[in-house]
């Protein structure tokens, strides 16, 4: 590329002539590598993520991969706004999978919240050793935890854009012989209004790279935003309506082979034996590959590979889990939470005293939720090619840098010899996060068996039966109401694989509260499912809150109100949703309203759902009102879509979905026995964002958790039936 790189370092700010700028958080070595990767002659690369070319094109390098949440556009809005760029000339590209483009702001963003003492919940699948490195600020390229806009955008893109703008102004001031203060910027130009002169960013970029960037530039006031807060159409949508968007499934390469795989039906089992002959007799099949716990078939195309695989009769062991079933798990969990001997606990106040006080009314209930599957629409597909001791990979996963590292480990080669090409993801919802993608190790081992590039595709059956499910869990809730109908004390005892304390923000103001976790592991690989543990814990506590309201003889909305601090954000959100939904006004016969509020990923969301129950007992949500306080909203239209999507995924999961185990294996296999909500049952959704100066919260996930309890509460309002187990299905049948 012929980029000349000279490095200056002043006050922690690095600068590379003719190429790349970096501010406070960037390592000099990293910025040098970044310039080498994306620099062009006469282009200025600002921070590791912004490049301005001579023709004024501004390229934003996103360390995140698109999985449908629209935040790539949000990142561009934030950088472009601070930069005062011309939106028509903004281009977003995936950052190269190289530590030079690692997402240090992500670590920084969660450093205050969560690091270094604990793993951010959405990263919990990461290996222990990787986390140790993370704590020392090893860079990541994770997309997850509803973090893209609030960490990368706020701490990365805005700062980079603002710093670059200041350098462009300073360069223009020198060239025009005027003071910085006399210059303004708009539409990728620096303007000197007094003399009527202006300079394009493209003319200034290369020289601006000679300036030292300020490490902490002044960011815009909200009143000056041009793109932030505007419903700008998403940049990723046009190729998604004409078939040109390329997902991991769509990789095309010369001589490409296709493989498909069957892993041990019981997680933890191994491949005992398989006779390869029946598959090798299928036309187009080239090879049968035996792995430790799976068998794969390589063929010319997917259909031949699948036909070959289905011709096999592999024998697998059950890893000692052959007696495990969903029923046995539920019974064991229910017994464990009665032992009064939790593994982890948190809370405040003296709960035992509050529950034992004279004159209180005790309320108790048992709740249970099944394993839930991500069911992303694009099944896993990852392509790998070994050539001359080097490995090249193509696909859509939520952390490209981790993918590269995991692939190198599986291949037994240095990460320097692995190139990963990230592609967009056909849904992810946590399923494609690091630590849960066995497909990386599988495809590397399969690719070693063939000189050709090979695309490993998981069938839908493989995808459903080998998920990283939201864990099956059980809970017992107990609370005391005092003589004024106020909650005096509350205990949630729950059993599941991991402690969910950090993701269970109890929002009500009560004197004593205890959250007690009982560890309960199964053979399953519990994964982060959109909103993670906030889902099941939100279902328990917001359903139980309704039970307490009715026990106190009060309206569920008013009962919640009186346990919220006057003037709080939570109260404002709750009041807003009640008002917008017409809470308390008469309804059509047979319908009921349910209300629920959960805070997750730093965002407060309250829903009111209006629902009815059919003769078959099946609940139907007709309309959902949602009120949201996530602090700054970068793209209101995209934000509303995320909340809406979360509500619909939440409804689908609580009405129908369950993964059940029998003899250690998953019973469901495809959409006929793991049905998802369809359009005919999708409610109207109205989302409203409350203005707030609070620090930014996430949007991809927080729409989900209040959905199940709001529907449970609506079912109760409509029928008088309290459903405490998911999924609802026909439990409300009269």
């Amino acid at each position, binding site marked *: 590329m012929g980029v000349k790189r000279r490095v200056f370092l002043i006050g922690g700010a690095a600068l590379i002539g003719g190429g790349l700028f970096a501010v406070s958080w960037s390592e000099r070595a990293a910025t040098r590598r970044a310039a080498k990767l994306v620099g062009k002659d006469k282009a200025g690369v600002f921070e590791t993520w912004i490049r301005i070319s001579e023709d004024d094109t501004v390229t934003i390098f996103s360390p995140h991969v698109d*999985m*449908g*949440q*629209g935040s790539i556009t949000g990142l561009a809005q934030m950088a472009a706004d601070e930069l005062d760029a011309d939106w028509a000339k903004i281009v977003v590209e995936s950052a190269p999978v190289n530590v030079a483009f690692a997402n240090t702001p992500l670590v920084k963003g969660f450093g205050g919240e969560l690091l270094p003492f604990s793993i951010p919940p959405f990263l919990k699948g990461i290996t222990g050793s990787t986390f140790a490195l993370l704590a020392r600020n090893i860079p990541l390229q994770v997309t997850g935890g509803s973090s893209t806009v609030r960490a990368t955008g706020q701490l990365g893109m805005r700062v980079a854009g603002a710093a670059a703008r200041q350098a462009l102004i300073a360069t223009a001031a020198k060239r025009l012989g005027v003071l910085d203060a006399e210059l303004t910027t708009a539409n990728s130009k620096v303007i000197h209004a007094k003399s009527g002169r202006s300079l394009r960013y493209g003319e200034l970029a290369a020289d601006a790279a000679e300036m030292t960037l300020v490490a902490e530039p002044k960011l815009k006031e909200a009143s000056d935003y041009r793109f932030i807060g505007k419903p700008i*159409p*998403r940049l*990723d*949508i*046009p*190729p*998604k*309506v*004409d*078939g*040109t*968007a390329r*997902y991991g*499934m*769509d990789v*095309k390469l010369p001589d490409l082979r*296709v493989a498909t795989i069957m892993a041990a039906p019981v997680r933890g089992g191994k491949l005992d034996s398989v006779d390869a002959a029946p598959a090798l007799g299928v*036309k187009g099949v080239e090879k049968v590959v035996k792995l430790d716990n799976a068998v794969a078939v390589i063929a010319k*195309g*997917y*259909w031949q590979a*699948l036909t070959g695989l289905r011709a096999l009769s592999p024998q697998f062991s059950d890893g000692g889990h052959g007696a495990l079933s969903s029923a046995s798990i539920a019974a064991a969990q229910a017994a464990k939470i009665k032992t009064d001997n939790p593994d982890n606990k948190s809370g405040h106040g003296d709960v035992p005293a509050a529950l034992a006080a004279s004159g209180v009314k005790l309320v108790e209930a048992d709740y249970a939720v099944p394993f839930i599957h991500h*069911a992303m*629409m*694009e*099944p896993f597909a990852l392509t790998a090619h070994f050539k001359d001791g080097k490995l090249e990979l193509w696909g859509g996963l939520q952390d490209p840098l981790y993918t590269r590292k995991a692939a190198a480990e599986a291949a037994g080669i240095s990460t320097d010899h692995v190139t990963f090409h990230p592609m*967009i993801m*056909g*849904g*992810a919802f946590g399923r494609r996060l690091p630590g849960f993608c066995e497909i990386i190790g599988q495809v590397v081992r399969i690719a070693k068996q063939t000189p050709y590039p090979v695309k490993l595709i998981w069938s*839908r*059956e493989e995808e459903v039966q080998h998920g990283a499910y939201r864990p099956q869990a059980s809970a017992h809730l107990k609370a005391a109401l005092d003589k004024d109908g106020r909650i005096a004390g509350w205990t949630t005892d729950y059993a599941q694989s991991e402690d969910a304390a950090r993701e269970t923000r109890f929002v009500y103001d009560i004197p004593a509260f205890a959250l007690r976790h009982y560890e309960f592991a199964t053979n399953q690989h519990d994964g982060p499912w959109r909103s993670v543990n906030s889902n099941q814990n939100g279902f328990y506590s917001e359903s139980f809150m309704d039970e307490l309201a009715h026990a106190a003889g009060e309206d569920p909305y008013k009962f919640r109100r009186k346990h919220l601090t006057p003037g709080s954000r939570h109260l404002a959100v709750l009041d807003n949703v009640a008002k*917008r939904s017409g809470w308390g006004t008469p309804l059509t016969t047979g319908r009921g309203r349910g209300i629920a509020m959960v805070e997750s990923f730093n965002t407060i969301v309250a829903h009111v759902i209006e629902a009815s129950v059919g003769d078959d007992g099946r609940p139907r949500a007709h309309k959902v009102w949602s009120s949201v306080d996530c602090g700054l909203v970068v793209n*209101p*239209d995209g934000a*509303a*879509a*995320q*909340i*809406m*999507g*979360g509500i*619909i*995924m939440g409804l689908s999961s609580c009405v129908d979905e369950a993964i059940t185990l029998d003899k250690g294996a998953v019973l469901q296999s*495809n*959409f*006929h026995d793991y049905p998802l*909500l*369809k*359009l*005919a049952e*999708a409610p*109207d*959704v*109205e*989302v409203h964002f409350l203005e707030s100066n609070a620090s930014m919260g996430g949007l991809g996930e927080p729409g989900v958790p209040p959905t199940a309890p709001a529907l449970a509460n609506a079912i109760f309002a409509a029928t008088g039936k309290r459903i405490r187990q998911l999924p609802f299905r026909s439990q409300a049948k009269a």
Partner: protein
Amino acid sequence: MAIDMQVNGKSFSIEADSDTPLLWVLREELGLTGTKFGCGIGACGACSVHVDGAITRSCRIPVGSVAGKAITTIEGIAAPNGTLHPVQQAWIDAQVPQCGYCQSGQIMAAVALIKKIGRPSAAHIDEAMTNICRCGTYPRIRTAILAATGQSVAAQGDA
């Protein structure tokens, strides 16, 4: 065996076993990857195409059964000059897609519905649009179909 068929207005002679699903011929032989693999059992609709104008889930149709027929995929619905089909444009205007993986199939289903019904009612849409979207874009799909047929509707997902 050689199977003759027409795809997006062009004639092809395909060498494939006749029981190979149309989906894999489109994707792997013709390189038309806009049609997606979702479930392989005709349950999700990500693979929807038109066979002689009728909406069809291509993962369940043996290529042998479409010999001599005209197939249209997502790559074939825009005008020859590249102008998007009104349904595609409505999808952009309503900002429907999220991950986008199911949207080729959704659009093909919507185009077939409109061709058959003209101005579909909400009930028609509920009945015909049975493709799965995990991202939960359904309310905006409704909006886009109504908008594409000149029917007004309140924006979905926004207050």
